[in-house]
């Protein structure tokens, strides 16, 4: 999952980026509204965190531009202005949620997870495909109620695939959303990870959850279960 942070205060930006990376997100961070606008338009962003009070270009103008150009990834507004007048204005220009500074990191993460989930059409914090259940908050994966032991990278790949269950996800799409820099990208690593995931999810080769579509990419092929309350 690739997150864009547009926040002009250097320290806060770095804290946020560090925390999000620690949570396994790929992070693009900038202090400039113009650069943020460009990144949002040109990069495969999954969600953006935007501070409204930017020095060169107002945050709301950035969001408006994204929306006008059909970039519909979820946007979380970060601002010091806590009046409802400001909140409503921010949500009306196309933001999806709103957080008033100062905030708890945990709250920010919870909101971000909820936004990502909603953007992929899931509305609960647990997503379930057949026997495989993923708890997004605690980052646990269970198969037939048995918890799997996954590395961070394995979890990230599986999370992306499950959130986009039934869609074909290309290798380049996966790497773009998982890594910040091109240098890290290596399709062999991805193949190894997919192979390991297949073993861990399906040791007996009865479920076959991850399909390889030749020349196109991978597909998590369990249809979404109706969500539990």
């Amino acid at each position, binding site marked *: 999952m690739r997150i864009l942070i547009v926040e002009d205060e250097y320290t806060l930006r770095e*804290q946020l980026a560090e925390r999000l990376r620690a949570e396994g997100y790929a992070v693009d961070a900038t202090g400039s509204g113009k650069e943020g606008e460009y990144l949002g338009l040109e990069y495969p962003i999954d969600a953006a965190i935007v501070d409204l009070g930017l020095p060169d270009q107002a945050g709301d103008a950035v969001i408006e531009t994204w929306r006008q150009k059909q970039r519909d990834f979820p946007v979380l507004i970060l601002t010091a202005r806590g009046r*409802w*007048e400001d909140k409503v204005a921010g949500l*009306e220009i196309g933001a999806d949620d709103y957080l008033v500074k100062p905030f708890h990191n945990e709250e920010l993460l919870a909101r971000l997870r909820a936004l990502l989930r909603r953007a992929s059409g899931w*509305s609960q914090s647990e997503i379930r495909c057949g026997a495989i259940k993923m708890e997004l908050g605690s980052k646990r994966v269970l198969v037939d109620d048995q918890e799997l032991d996954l590395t961070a990278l394995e979890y990230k790949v599986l999370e992306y695939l499950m959130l986009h269950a039934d869609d074909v996800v290309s290798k380049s799409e996966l790497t773009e959303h998982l890594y910040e820099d091109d240098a890290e990208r290596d399709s062999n690593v991805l193949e190894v990870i997919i192979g390991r995931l297949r073993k861990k999810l399906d040791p007996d080769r009865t479920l076959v959850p991850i399909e390889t579509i030749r020349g196109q990419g991978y597909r998590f092929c369990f249809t979404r279960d109706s969500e539990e309350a």
Partner: protein
Amino acid sequence: MRSLRTRILFSASLVLVTFLGCASVLLDRAFRESALNSVEDRLRGRIFMLIGAADFDAPGDQSLIDSLPDPSLSIPGSGNYARIVSRNGDARWESRSLLGIEPDFPPPVETGQWQLDHIRAATGEKLFSLAYSIIWEGAGVNHPIHFVIQACENRRFYLDTVGRFRRSLWLWFAALSVTLLVVQALNLSWGLRPLRSVEDEVRAIEQGRSNQIVGEYPSELTSLTRNLNTLIAHNRENLQRYRNALGDLAHSIKTPLAILRNQFESEEKKSSTDTMLEQLERLDRTVEYQLHRAAAAGRSLLSPPLAVAPVVERIADSLRKVHAHRELEITVAVDPGALFLGDEGDLMEIIGNLGDNSCKWARQRVEIRVSSLPVRTLQIDVADDGPGIPNGQLDVLLKRGAKLDHSVEGHGIGLAIVREMVEDVYQGHLGFETSNEGTVARVKIDFA
């Protein structure tokens, strides 16, 4: 005397009455003088007539006048009298009208002199009397003879004339006064009409039916109305500028707060970091609360009326978006004519915070109802089907910055802000009805 109209009407009427009063007194006096002159002229004419008719050469035992050209002198008690006396006072001739009247004639006058007197007759009649004396040097007489010719007229004629004049004078003046006063009043209401319409427009602004003065006014008023419009606009701009300044202040305080909190949260748990986090929390709530308080615009006489329905719709849309993951059913029922006589930001703050609070607690449903009650009272109900507020917690909830349940996200000062806004800024009332079926937050604001 508080009204300009009464003042002008009063002073104009005073001037009018004084003027007409003085004029009538002066006219009356002038007329009496001229009436008196005409009495004198009439009597003088009668004397000349008698001199012409008299035969002064007639012997002492014969009548001086044989035939009278004026018949009124021949009718007894007619009011017109005359006589001719010799120097020593012997009557040489008396008009027949004098019969039984016996006026108290004044003593004879010097030769060639005219003398007007007010005399009284034995009958009580008041008379004007004019006397003239002549010296006659007749043909057959060798020494000149003095005659005094006296003519009288009843004062009644004079008084009648004066009375008639006065009656007509007063009648006309009264009619004139009434006409002038009516014209004056019409004039005033025409002249002051622009003032009255300014008054109406200002009242419309006060009652929130309008937000600026739009009419065309005479040059004396345009600077006033222009200034008033500027003042209203300035007021609004000021509020906006003030809020922007508060927003900037919030930004510059809260960003460092956010950094500090993130720093402490990421550090290893120590009791000192806990204390610092606690203090940061306090600082944050205080800043948040005070900034909200400061940004409240309140009820202004000059603020335009605000239709409540669109504001509620916008808030509901925002709530649906922010609480999308809860899959709540957020419904809105607003009286179409409901008006809020205050600031839009304040109304959003009230409904937004109550709605947000309900959304956090609701199980499935939140309803925002707004109704206009009689005598300009606005009632806002925000209902949820949550677990209700435990007994005794309501007070804590409403206290400044208190937070009932830390597990529910948010700053926890929303309700305190609403209470401050409703009760202190708009002098309204905030109440809660709660059971384990749900909670209704009810705001009542009286705009009368």
